[in-house]
């Protein structure tokens, strides 16, 4: 986990001097669009529980994209993601919370403003950590950032007027867009399917994922992405090319935290409650940080679309497996040594990680690159 750039690990793709907008480019665009259309249509066909699971994958996707920019593109190992998730969740809840509650701090902002505010707050928190981060490298940075998770939980649990405390937690304001509520209120139908809270939140999350995705892709392929990779691969060379290394590091920390903050907002909207409890297995604990790391490595470090796949796997698999097995009556034995669906999904999660590293150390993105090798050649891993 050192900073050493190990040419031995370099996935080497065969050289090819292809221009960018060839036939393959259009095919890929068409595939992305097709996927998007399918995602748009899903709420019309899927039951609430599947939508709920899908939403959770989207939460993961946003967070994972942020982390892959930081850790994959800019080479800054971070285990602080859970902290920024908590910060985003708390900020949204506080900013949008009612201003007249005697015990809880709230600013009564419009939910959209609160969302933007939460993202901004986490970005600033990321910036604030940057000076520390700039001094550290590799695994040391990783563990140092882990400290934020513990501190965050401690503060979150202590600051009851913000978080509601661990006893009751605090419900977030339902999201609203220019007066349109993302709840069960109001009648709305598409093709005879009532569009209620679950469906609405699905579309909200989908929109957020798409925006986050396009931003990340654009950034990675542009000037700023090159600066990130340069800082990752050789700081001295980066500096010689005019890059302020501490500045870029701070910037990418801010961007990544902003993503995590947005994922935090989505988390709290998904759970309908903010509750910073259970340091070990909670929603904002270290296992969450590790899960995000797993997503981006499974997906392929630095790969934005890989992060999406990683999120689908890590956040989705346990959910889908639990749903399926209850549907189909798998693993329903009880008793103290039973193989419950939850247990099975842990096994599958573990095995998936092992298999990916074993057979494709470059992550699923590497497989993807090989598959699309016919349409996409020699482009940077984005």
């Amino acid at each position, binding site marked *: 986990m050192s900073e050493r750039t190990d040419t031995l690990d370099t996935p080497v793709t065969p050289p090819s001097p292809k221009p960018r907008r060839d036939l393959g480019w259009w095919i890929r665009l068409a595939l992305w669009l097709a996927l998007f259309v399918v995602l748009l249509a899903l709420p019309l*066909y899927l039951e609430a*529980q599947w939508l709920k699971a899908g939403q959770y994958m989207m939460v993961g996707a946003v967070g994972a994209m942020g982390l892959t920019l930081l850790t994959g593109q800019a080479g800054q190992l971070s285990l602080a993601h859970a902290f920024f998730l908590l910060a985003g969740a708390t900020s949204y809840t506080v900013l949008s919370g009612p201003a007249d509650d005697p015990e809880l701090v709230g600013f009564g902002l419009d939910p959209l403003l609160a969302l933007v505010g939460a993202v901004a707050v986490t970005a600033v928190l990321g910036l604030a950590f940057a000076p520390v981060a700039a001094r550290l490298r590799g695994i040391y940075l990783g563990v140092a950032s882990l400290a934020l998770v513990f501190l965050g939980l401690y503060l979150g649990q202590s600051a009851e007027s913000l978080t509601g405390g661990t006893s009751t937690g605090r*419900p977030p304001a339902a999201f609203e867009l220019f007066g349109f509520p993302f709840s069960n209120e109001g009648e709305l139908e598409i093709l005879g399917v009532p569009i209620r809270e*679950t469906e609405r939140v699905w579309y909200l999350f989908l929109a957020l994922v798409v925006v986050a995705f396009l931003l990340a892709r654009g950034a990675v392929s542009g000037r700023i992405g090159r600066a990130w990779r340069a800082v990752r691969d050789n700081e001295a060379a980066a500096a010689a090319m005019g890059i302020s290394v501490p500045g870029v590091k701070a910037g990418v920390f801010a961007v990544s935290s902003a993503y995590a903050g947005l994922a935090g907002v989505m988390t709290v909207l998904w759970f309908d*409650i903010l*509750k910073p409890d259970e340091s070990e297995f909670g929603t904002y604990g270290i296992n969450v940080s590790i899960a995000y790391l797993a997503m981006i490595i499974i997906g392929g470090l630095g790969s934005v679309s890989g992060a999406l796949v990683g999120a689908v796997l890590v956040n989705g698999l*346990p959910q889908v497996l639990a749903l399926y097995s209850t549907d189909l009556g798998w693993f329903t034995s009880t008793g103290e040594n039973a193989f419950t669906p939850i247990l099975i999904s842990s096994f599958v999660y573990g095995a998936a990680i092992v298999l990916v590293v074993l057979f494709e150390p470059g992550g699923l993105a590497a497989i993807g690159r090989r598959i699309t090798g016919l349409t996409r050649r020699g482009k940077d891993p984005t």
Partner: protein
Amino acid sequence: GTKGGGSDGGTEGAGGVQTDVGVTDSEITLGVMTDQTGPFKALSTGITHGNELWVEDVNADGGICGRDLKLEIVDHGYKADTAKTLYPQIEPKVLGLVQLVGSPVTAALSDDLEADEMTTTPTSWSSELLSNPYLMVVGTTYDVEMINGLSYLQEEGMLSDGDTIGHIYIDGEYGANGLRGARYYAEQHDLNLREVKITSSDNDLTNVVTGLRGQGVKAITLTTTPTQTGSVAAANKALGLNVPILGNNPTFDPLLHNSPAADALDDLHVVASSVPFSADIPKMKDVAQKFDAAGYTEPPNAGVPYGYAVAEVWGAVLERACENGDLTRSGVHDALRETTSADTGDLVAKLDFSTPGAPATREVYVAKPDASVDGGMTYIKQLFESEEAKAYKAPHQE
């Protein structure tokens, strides 16, 4: 085709009873969202078995309202995220939830339960939960347990006004609610309360007890896990502190008798509103015998009688709803509100669900660890209610 819209509103079913979700002409389905994989699997499994035993009994007697009972059991492994997706799946199938394990899970589902009018029994006894009218807490709440327990200690001369006591509590709904009781009692009796906040995974409390010893506490009260109770008991003895320890219902598990802390348990007192597995009352004997007959592999614990008792209360509520001719969700809720004295054969004190926000009972037993009996505990004081507890106003009590 696309998925159809859900049909709302009750329909007239067999026997002229209104029904909506989870009830057919032949079956009533109740949900169990439990933890068979995570940290509370021991207690949860006991409760589930208690639920199951009762269902068998009821069905053997011809069911309720002419319908057989059925349990829909899902495991969420104490993970709130999993529970959150599993809930929409189980929701359209069940009338209510006889068991919902886990404070984080309950918190995450609280809004949904209210929106779906889903009467639910959480395996949590926090009076904070009572803000949600659909949560039916069977037994008394942690705060009341603490108040009663402290008054017991004082009555027995183990504590006097003005003493210092230490309260160790798990940060969260469980611990904070216990602490609320301790604070209330300490205020009444001018006790000097030292609060120590821990998390559910901090198991070694030697340093905490060392600190409390330095502060000269006369008793330690606990709202902790059984493992943590063991650690406190062991340290209490090892460090030569030897003060009485008072714990809430969930602080004890019979497995403690097999731990190195076994020799240090004599100072422990457990307050609870449901009986230990070994209780010497006819109903308990009956349940215990059924448990043995059922051939479960797990050792029995207090979850079994509790699970049975909860189900009995549900039986009473459903019977009433049936009488009212309304087995819809809202009908069940109305029936619950009309239930003023649910009788569980003293597995749990008599319950009154008519006052929104108030605990259904304020009566508790006091028990002591006893390795020689099944369930590991014998009770040393019968159901009682202290003056302080009677006067106490729960946070959401109207």
